[in-house]
């Protein structure tokens, strides 16, 4: 298990981390999810030893590592912008950690070949990083980090600099890789879809604090507060309660507990139909329906309807 306990870190006046405690179980793939400036990267870098906390303790497998330099933490770190060794070939990049550990050449060659096979870069041994695409560079960086058989793999926005298609492919690929290699992994991301699709645990962070930790589904279905709910998916507010747009039922007749609204716009997004609504005091409310539901309802823009929430998650604070 990796644990960070009571971590506080300030940069000048800015509080990057405010008494943060988190435990990462062995073999898990945990995502640190949050907006920029939430402290997620700083927490990762503190676990790696690239930053020193002002207060708090970092433990890896039960041993205090707070003052151990990154060289001796047995970690693998992957940077957003790859940090490829530009003057070295792909082979030398991946072999770097093994050469530092003075492994015999035959062993290094075998390990490098094996890893390049795993990351799909076999045959690119003699290329230089500037001859690779962004996705290939990041896979090389992953192979380089995995080569030394780290106890923990730390990924700092690893797909942030890649375009959408490559990002989705690499995400899938990373999940499968994790299922094969099973190294404890911490992934920093600001993309909730990325976190939901590959992590088995998510820690949502905001303003240097951890707001909630749990399984992706648990966080989506039972968010601890408004921030977590809003960060993990779209939110509509009806009658002082926060609701997922797909949990809104549109009715044509008034009934007790239903809220009156006018349809301002109907947007057809293929399978999904988005119904934008104007409530008495609220803007930006919309409901998500399937195409079939929308067809059966037979409503059009301008109609007055009544809304009912089937699953309100969080009570909205009173608008002051």
């Amino acid at each position: 298990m990796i644990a960070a306990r009571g971590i506080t870190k300030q940069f000048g006046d800015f509080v990057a981390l405010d008494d943060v405690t988190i435990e990462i179980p062995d073999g898990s793939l945990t995502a640190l999810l949050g907006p920029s400036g939430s402290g997620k990267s700083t927490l990762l870098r503190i676990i790696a030893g690239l930053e020193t906390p002002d207060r708090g303790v970092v433990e890896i497998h039960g041993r205090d590592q707070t003052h151990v330099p990154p060289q001796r933490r047995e970690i693998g770190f992957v940077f957003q912008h790859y940090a490829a060794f530009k003057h070295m070939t792909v082979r030398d990049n991946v072999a770097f950690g093994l050469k530092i550990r003075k492994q015999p050449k035959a062993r290094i060659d075998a390990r490098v070949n094996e890893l390049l096979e795993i990351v799909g870069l076999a045959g690119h041994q003699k290329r230089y990083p500037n001859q690779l695409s962004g996705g290939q560079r990041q896979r090389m960086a992953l192979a380089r980090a995995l080569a030394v058989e780290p106890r923990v793999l730390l990924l700092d926005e690893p797909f942030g600099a890649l375009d959408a298609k490559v990002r989705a492919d690499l995400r899938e690929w990373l999940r499968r890789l994790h299922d094969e290699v099973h190294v404890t992994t911490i992934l920093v991301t600001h993309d909730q879809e990325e976190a939901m699709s590959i992590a088995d645990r998510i820690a949502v962070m905001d303003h240097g604090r951890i707001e909630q930790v749990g399984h992706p589904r648990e966080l989506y279905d039972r968010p601890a507060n408004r921030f977590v709910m809003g960060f993990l998916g779209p939110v509509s507010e009806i009658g002082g309660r926060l609701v997922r747009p797909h949990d809104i039922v549109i009715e044509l007749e008034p009934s007790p507990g239903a809220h009156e609204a006018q349809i301002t716009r109907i947007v057809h997004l293929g399978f999904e139909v988005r119904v934008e609504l104007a409530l008495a005091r609220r803007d930006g409310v919309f409901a998500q329906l399937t195409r079939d539901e929308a067809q059966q309802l037979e409503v059009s823009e301008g109609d007055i309807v009544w809304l009912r929430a089937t699953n309100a998650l969080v009570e909205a604070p009173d608008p002051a």
Partner: protein
Amino acid sequence: MTVSRPWQLTLRILALGWLLALLLAPVALIFYRTFEPGIGAVWDSITTPAAISAFWLTIEVSAIAVVVNTVLGVVMALALARGRWRGRWVLDAIIDLPFAISPVVVGLSLILVYGTTGWFGRDLADLGIRVIFSVPGIVLATVFVTLPFVVREVTPVLREVGDEQEQAAATLGASGWQTFWRITLPSIRWGIAYGVVLTTARAIGEFGAVSVVSGKVSGETETLTLLVEKRFANFDLAGAYAASALLAAIALLTLLIMTTFNRRREEA
């Protein structure tokens, strides 16, 4: 900015004409005048004992200046680009001092410090070490005058490369020393090479500071630039031209190396 065709031509001719008048013509003329009396005479005048001694002294002093300023320059560049210490700006400002101060003043201040009546001069003299009017003084003056080049070439390269590769090396187990040799040094090598070439060029051509501290003892503390000046002052024009041509040849060689480095740096 778009410039019309006639204007483009005019600007080009102006720029080339300026270069020709200011640089190429005088240098070409030196070579012309040098070889006017015939190659044999030139050879004779650059192979006199004084000339040979001056040539080797220039090479020796430049070599020492290059080694010292490369090592210290890289250390200072690292301190400036990677350091997190307070007062970095002081170092940053001081480094440019040799550019700002006239070389003659540098020479005079060296005499004030190391001369026989200077701060350390007497103690050093008691130890049998002579700095002023001797080779160590020439080396000191040259090192001082050429100090900024490597630092000023390497610092921006270090900043541009960033420290992520160094951090990556650290997470892979490399010590600070290993990271420097395997990651940092290879990524700044063209910056260093360029700085070394500039340092060499400047060291070979240095006159002012060296002139003040050398004592100009022929065959002992006379560098090539000093030899040129002496011959010129003694109305030995042919000899001055020959020594100048030798200097210019070394300078052209460094320029050629520099251009090659620059090309490779841009390709890298």
